[in-house]
């Protein structure tokens, strides 16, 4: 055990003292924060750019309806014909011309309305105009039908289907998605960690092979301990890096928000929203915010964190021992491609299955299947778990079965990988085939 500790410590130091590792650790948060600031800044610019649209209204239906908003200002043309208006819009370099012809009724007018512009207008611009026109159309049609505006207001009330679970709890729309998203973030973190640090383990094995120190080491310790020490040491370095990233990104982001006065909310609100929608948004949020917050609090965080740790440790050990075996089987990194693809495949599958199937239906057959299959379960099960376990969540037997399968796979894979590793580290000079790897298992 002393030797294992020595190996872990050496691998850890070798990793954290590595120059490129240090540079990555320092630069990554700067890059991430830089990106966020850039996005926020660009969004702000986009927001502040307002469009000027000329309105040539020959009818009588749209007086004063086009009021300048945040994103679009309207300029009203009067007493000129269409051609002249088009020329002036071009001359004045306005962003477009809305032409409203005259006709007997509002429907005829609407049919012949046109929007002229140099480029294709953005959907936000057309949506804004359409919303105004739609409003006027509705009013006019109601008047024709003899329905007053106030009557209509009474009729037109938004309807939301209330959701409840059988035990009487309140269900909220989009909660499944929110929960799966939280689980997905955990699953995604596991995948990234495996790919990055599994690769480190592999390269470190290859380095030992090419520098030929391997024989010196395994004449002192069992290859299995070396492999285990390497995997643990590298993952500790990884956790260190992750922790530094989290803390420094958080601090940096906080400082930037304070200094630059960027509103983080600006990142979440689409700049294309019309004024009406903008106005609607906060009230909507207010109404449901507490409910969603309650729902978020109801997510079994303790269970989720515990499962994250268990699935993370087992999943990482499974994959990184495969990475170690690959590193032992080859002589240089270019030979690893053929072996790496089959490893990444289940990871990607887990993520995509998660996003496309588990988000919509966390307890459907596909979600269940992939959360039991040990190579994808660390990702998919975590996406399902925010719904809790037991009734309404993941059935307990599924969680247990998934864990048992994972542990069995872990034992089998580590055993197989250490066999390949033991033989591979002493094999030089040729690129092995799968058949040879199979033969090594029997040595």
């Amino acid at each position, binding site marked *: 055990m002393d030797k294992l500790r020595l190996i872990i410590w050496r691998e850890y130091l*070798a990793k954290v003292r590595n120059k490129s590792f240090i540079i990555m650790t320092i630069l990554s948060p700067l890059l991430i924060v830089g990106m966020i600031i850039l996005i926020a800044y660009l969004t702000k610019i986009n927001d502040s750019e307002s469009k000027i649209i000329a309105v040539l209204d020959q009818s009588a239906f749209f007086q004063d309806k086009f009021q300048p908003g945040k994103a679009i200002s309207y300029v009203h043309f009067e007493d000129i014909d269409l051609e002249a208006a088009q020329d002036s819009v071009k001359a004045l370099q306005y962003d477009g011309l809305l032409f409203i012809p005259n006709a007997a009724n509002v429907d005829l007018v609407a049919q012949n309305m046109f929007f002229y512009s140099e480029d294709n207008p953005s959907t936000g611009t057309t949506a804004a105009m359409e919303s105004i026109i739609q409003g006027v159309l509705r009013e006019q049609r109601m008047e024709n039908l003899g329905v007053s505006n106030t009557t209509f207001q009474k009729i037109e009330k938004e309807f939301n289907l209330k959701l409840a679970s059988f035990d009487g709890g309140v269900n909220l729309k989009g909660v499944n998605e929110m929960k799966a998203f939280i689980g997905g973030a955990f699953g995604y973190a596991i995948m990234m960690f495996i790919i990055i640090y599994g690769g480190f383990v592999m390269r470190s094995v290859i380095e030992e092979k090419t520098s030929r120190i391997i024989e*010196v080491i395994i004449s002192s310790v069992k290859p299995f301990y070396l492999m285990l020490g390497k995997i643990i040491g590298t993952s500790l370095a990884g956790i260190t890096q992750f922790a530094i990233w989290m803390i420094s990104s958080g601090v940096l982001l906080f400082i930037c928000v304070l200094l630059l006065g960027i509103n983080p909310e600006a990142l979440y609100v689409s700049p294309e929203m019309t004024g009406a929608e903008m106005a609607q948004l906060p009230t909507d949020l207010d109404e449901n915010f507490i409910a969603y917050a309650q729902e978020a609090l109801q997510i079994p965080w303790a269970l989720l964190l515990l499962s994250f740790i268990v699935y993370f440790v087992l999943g990482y050990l499974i994959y990184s021992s495969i990475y170690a075996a690959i590193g032992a089987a080859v002589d240089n990194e270019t030979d690893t491609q053929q072996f790496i693809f089959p490893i990444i495949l289940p990871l990607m599958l887990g993520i995509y299955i998660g996003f496309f199937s588990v988000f919509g239906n966390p307890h459907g057959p596909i979600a269940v299947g992939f959360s039991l299959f040990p190579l994808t379960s660390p990702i998919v099960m975590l996406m399902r778990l925010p719904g809790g376990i037991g009734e309404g969540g993941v059935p307990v037997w599924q969680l247990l079965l998934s864990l048992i399968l994972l542990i069995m796979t872990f034992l089998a894979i580590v055993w197989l990988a250490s066999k390949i590793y033991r033989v591979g580290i002493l094999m030089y000079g040729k690129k092995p085939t799968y058949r040879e790897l199979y033969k090594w298992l029997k040595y």
Partner: protein
Amino acid sequence: MQNMLVADTVSKFYGKHKALSDVSLEIPENSIYGLLGPNGAGKTTFIRIINQITFPDEGQILFKGKPLHPKDVARIGYLPEERGLYKSMKVGEQALYLSQLKGVPKIEAKKRLKEWFDRFEIGPWWNKKIQELSKGMAQKVQFIVTVLHEPELLIFDEPFSGFDPINANLIKNEILRLKENGTSIIFSTHRMESVEELCEHIALIHKSEKILDGKLSDIKKAYRKNRFTVDLKSNQDLDTAKILEKDIAIVHNEYDAKEEIQHLTLQLPCDETREVLHLLSDLGTVYRFEEVVPTVNEIFIQTVNEREQHG
């Protein structure tokens, strides 16, 4: 003398390939043992079995009379043929790490390292990385790492490859000193002439089998052919060779006209030399009279040939 290591009908297979076949050896304590044979004969496999890097499929190894135990690795030092150290690790740190892996406490390892660094006059390298050192320098570090845990059995695979003559001599003297201090040493090499003078015992390995082993002096005795080389300055006008031919078989005959010396190789019927010497000294001055002792290389080739002829 007690045996340091005994191999008892050890066999090792890789799939269908036989890497070692029923090899039995006895390596005496406090001696230098030569494990000789061409590349691919199975020497490295045998050494890896002693180091418990691989394990025999049949037979067993006894270390000081007891079956080899995983803990015994701390009592064995191994310099592999493929030398290697962590390139980006500092010399001192690395040597400490490797000797700690062999079970030497850190403080003790540091003390011993300082002594070795002083002895080899490489103190200033302590904080250098291996990649900054030349190949020969790295080899010195590797040698120190191999012996630092003061093993009872030292195994050198191709000990002198990679050293320049000066350093090879330095290492040779260090190895002899270790032997004086009671260490048992195994040399494994395909360059038999390089260790011939150092080894007291040898084993010849050929195509995964041991074909010959024993005390080097005994083996040489057994392979003697009663051949002698003679350098003779004749005091006769007659052709000395012609005179000798009557009584003795001459294998080789060459006359050095410049030095006026006759170089002869004689084949005697037995190792009785009195008569021959008598005869020779009648013919002139004998500058040299020496038995032709076969080299290990010659013995090896002869043994292999004999085995192949016999099936």
